[in-house]
């Protein structure tokens, strides 16, 4: 009975198809995305139009300087965040700042190489609550730095796959 109804009304199937298309889009940059980011990044020269899109994520974050400012603000938010501040007690602040800046820079397609510990080594017993808290602080830090919503989302897309290595299960 219900199968018939599904065939008579193509709506849900259309939605599922859209879904599948979106799923694929997530893995390879689509022409639309490349166009949108080129528009967003008015300073991008003609050469960049053909560059792979993660390189202009680095530019959109304000290059190395912008990323370092972002990480510094993130660290301020962390210190003020009761949910996670205790975890960072006794942290080597300079090392953390330079390693996290390297990591974000590299993920964004910038000319950096992360040389710190593997995520599974530097993180132990981290809960979902703490992970969510840190991502919230990151978003607030990005907002404070005037980073556009689309750029924020692209960085989050690069960081989300690290979740299984960071959160304890």
């Amino acid at each position: 009975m219900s199968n018939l109804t599904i065939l008579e009304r193509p709506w849900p199937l259309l939605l599922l198809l859209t879904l599948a298309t979106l799923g694929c889009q997530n893995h390879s940059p689509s022409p639309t995305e490349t166009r949108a980011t080129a528009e967003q990044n008015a300073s991008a020269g003609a050469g960049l139009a053909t560059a792979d899109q993660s390189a202009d994520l680095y530019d959109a974050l304000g290059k190395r300087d912008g990323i370092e400012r972002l990480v510094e603000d993130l660290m301020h938010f962390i210190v003020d965040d009761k949910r996670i501040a205790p975890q960072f007690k006794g942290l080597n602040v300079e090392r953390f700042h330079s390693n996290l800046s390297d990591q974000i820079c590299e993920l964004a397609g910038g000319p950096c190489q992360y040389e710190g510990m593997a995520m599974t080594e530097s993180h132990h017993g981290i809960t979902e609550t703490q992970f969510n808290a840190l991502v919230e602080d990151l978003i607030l830090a990005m907002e404070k730095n005037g980073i556009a919503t689309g750029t924020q989302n692209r960085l989050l897309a690069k960081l989300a796959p690290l979740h299984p290595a960071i959160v304890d299960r």
Partner: protein
Amino acid sequence: MIQPYARQLRACGLLVVIVLITQAQAQAQPGSRLWATGGVTTVEGSAGGGLVPWALLSGYASDTEWGGTLALSRAELDDFTLGFTGVSLNWRNRFELSAGRQTLDLDTLGAALGQDELRQDIYGLKVRLTGDVLYGRYGQWSLGLQHKRNREFAVPAAVGARHDTGTDAFLAGSKLFFAALMNRNVLANVTLRGTKANQGGLLGFGGDQGDDYEAMLEASLGIFLDRRWLAGVEYRQKPDNLGFAEEHDWYDLFLVWLPDRRLAVTAAWVNLGDIAGLSDQRGAYLSLQGSF
């Protein structure tokens, strides 16, 4: 005469509570999950959109927290008014419990039927089986139950409904795709529901044309314009068990505004199709949700 007045008072009371919650202690946040990852409250009390329950659990509690929501919703259709008032609790982003009252004011049919409204109580349970809407490779999957009890059964019985109570079961999957469309985050949801409910249960369960559980597909797709605005569309397939009038699938277009975690305001355009022989019931939907 006293009935609708008392209900209005109750609704106002709840509105005051929602506003109080949202104003209370500017510092206190309801939980740690990111903005909008609890969805909003559906017309049946489970977390989701407006018409379709999603795999998301209500409110903002993460794995070491608990929380919940209060909600007040209303859809003004051509010949009916659909209302819902309810509460939900979320324990550690694992279990969601909900309870609420749904009403359908028979604005046009009331005089002919000698009854102002149909009411049912809905108790819901949702369990997150696996995954996470943001970080799960395959998104987040939840199993849900909605137990519904008609408070007035004279009208449903008269039009052929078999039972005054019923339980829907559903499996829902939700996933957020980061930067998926014009660098905006896209939230997709698919729900498969087993149900006997007529018009969601307001017209009872089962009928002269069928009294078996049927599988219904529901889906929604939303896009975050930024972290405070979510726009989207929903579709809900429905059974057709009553011979006296045809029952149609439901659709809506919605816009959610979340100034912060404590408050969500949902506006929608809904199309509930024919209801009890009155055709093309469309209208505006407004829902307020407070989270704690």
